[in-house]
């Protein structure tokens, strides 16, 4: 089961790459909308396979006695991150029918999966500190939130790339602006829920709900940046391009919280005591 799951994940990664190319081609070659449609079909199929792979991995974990949900290490979190990115994008596509967004959003899912494939996929039993339902809630909310921010960043990039010379009153622009904001909102609520569930877990594992360790602090930094973004709308002149740039900066904070802290700051503090 584990092997089947891993093979599925390889196929899914490849499918996300193909879909990204399809969306891009469909957007550039205006005369061939069938390319975008093909990319959609491929993406939905890949998402289904991705879901199956995660469930299979979950079952496999119980089969070999490791007994935990597949949200416990970097590999599993990346696989889940890729899944949430694809899911959130496809929901937006369903609602707005704007396939060109896929040219910006799907590559994120692909890169998350590509990174995952470079890691060791072995299913290992959990350390005692990680055995907590709050931790599962924590991982799920955080990564859904990260995906909201990721899609928002993709939309922002699209806004900035396609924006030159067009009137900001264009309906399509208003839609993009609104989508950027809505995805930040989704991300912000879920990141908040993620920080809260993380605190509850830390409180029951270590006896402190907040200890200013670098990972925690970076999630707070990300949260503060997006809180500022949400308030920027209430200041004059903060719309469109500025908010798009802000959302990109926010996503850089997300990426640093996710990868940078472990890679760059681990020399100073250790997260898992």
């Amino acid at each position, binding site marked *: 089961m584990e092997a089947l799951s891993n093979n599925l994940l390889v196929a899914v990664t490849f499918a996300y790459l193909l879909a990204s190319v399809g969306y891009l081609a469909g957007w550039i070659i205006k005369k061939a909308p069938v390319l975008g449609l093909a990319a959609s079909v491929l993406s939905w199929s890949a998402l289904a396979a991705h879901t199956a792979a995660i469930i299979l991995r979950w079952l496999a974990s119980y089969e070999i006695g490791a007994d935990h949900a597949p949200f416990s290490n970097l590999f599993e979190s990346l696989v889940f991150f890729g899944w949430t990115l694809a899911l959130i994008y496809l929901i937006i596509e369903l609602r707005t029918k704007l396939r060109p967004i896929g040219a910006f959003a799907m590559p994120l899912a692909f890169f998350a999966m590509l990174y995952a494939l470079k890691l060791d996929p072995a299913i290992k039993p959990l350390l005692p500190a990680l055995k907590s339902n709050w931790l599962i809630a924590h991982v799920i909310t955080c990564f859904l939130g990260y995906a909201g921010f990721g899609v928002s960043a993709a939309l922002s990039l699209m806004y900035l790339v396609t924006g030159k010379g067009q009137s900001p009153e264009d309906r399509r622009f208003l839609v993009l602006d609104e989508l950027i904001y809505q995805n930040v909102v989704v991300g912000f609520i879920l990141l*908040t829920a993620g920080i809260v569930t993380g605190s509850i877990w830390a409180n029951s594992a270590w*006896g402190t709900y907040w200890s200013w360790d670098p990972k925690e*602090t970076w999630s707070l930094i990300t949260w503060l940046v997006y809180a500022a973004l949400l*308030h920027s709308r209430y200041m004059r002149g903060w719309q469109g391009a500025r908010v798009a740039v802000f959302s990109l900066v926010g996503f850089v904070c997300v990426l640093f919280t996710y990868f940078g802290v472990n890679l760059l700051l681990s020399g100073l503090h250790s997260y898992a005591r």
Partner: protein
Amino acid sequence: MKQTEKPGAPGQRFWDFFASVKLSFVLLLSLALASVLGTLLPQKEHVSVYVQQFGETGARLILGLRLDDMYHAPWFLLLLALLAANLVICSLNRLPLTLKLMAKEPAEELKRSRPAQESLTLAGTPDDHLERAAAALRQAVGPVTRGEDGPARVLYAEKGAWSRLGVYLVHLSVLVIMAGAIVGNIWGFAGFINLNQGSTTDHLDLDNGAQIPLGFGLRLDKFTVEFHPDGMPKEYRSDLTFIENGQEVQKAVLMVNHPAERHGIDFYQASYGQSVTKLSANFIRDGQTQTVALAHGQWTDLAGGGKALLIEARPEVNMGGMYKGPVARVGYQPPQGEPVALTAFQAGAKVPMRGGPVSVEILELESTPYSGIQVKYDPGVWLIWVGCTLMVAGFVVAFYFAHRKVWLRLTPAGKGRCRIEIAGSTNKNRLGLTRLLERLSARLAAGAAQGE
């Protein structure tokens, strides 16, 4: 929205400054930037660490600005206090206006003329369409208020006025969380207990070095570690008994992620190890050897005068190529003179011994497992959880509900026709409102077609 004071008065300017979103924007980003700094600089290290990394001047600057414990530095706390003041004043400033907007009479709203966003023309008089339109409006928005404006019929409905309070809920929650942190800091404490299997303690060592009584006894009955087949630890477990007035009053099992509680004090499984309780050693004085058994912190009289005790011991110390094995520190009180501390190595080990007429060699160490227990008393933690719940609930209200108002105006358009104009307003998600108005328009058109 402004208070009655004259604009420009110093009090008013101060108030406006603290009520502004610009200030909160700057504060939020400043807190973010400061926190970045806190993750780049090592925190709570010894002075020497900063001197080594940043030089004398750098270290002086870091210590002067309290960057070595930045999250508790006065200026960082000041930023948080400013944010709290900003929140309170901004909310006080806006709440009256919000309440007024929420309490507005529908009859008053009815009279406002709004530019139409959708319009359609149908056969029949306004009165022919009135009931159908009212039903559609009630279904799409809510209870309908009716009015007349000459020959025109006007309908008005609104929903979600209460959602304007969502933002206040969010802002209040931030204050509640801050209050929880403050309560915990003032009235709470955190500390640590290292408890040997079989022993009892009635106090704990606080993180700041002080000792305080628990108010009851805590005994470690048993400590166990379970391993997975591959050697990874599976579970750490301390079996505890709480004792009051000499009576066993409560048993508890402590595991990681499974704390225990007594009288509001929480106990957490934090670490474990082996602690040496007894040392059997050769005591060599003036060329004469005697075998002694020394206990932890307890003087044992020596044959020939003087006494000795075990200060501390480690079952295994690796000193490079020089020595590898147990090491103990032994206190020795000679018959006359000051007590001294001696370092003992395994008997027969080739270690460059310090000279002197007295030395000790380890024969055997006896050890018991000990459990490291994190202890916490935090009377503010419930406020934190209440605040977090309020915050998430507030987000849902603030983001997913809107105060929407919709007006329908039915006017005779000549030749037995009727023109319906649809106008709307909302405090957020304009696109959502546009979609709602489009749906309403389509419904009215379809309803009229069916009615014919």
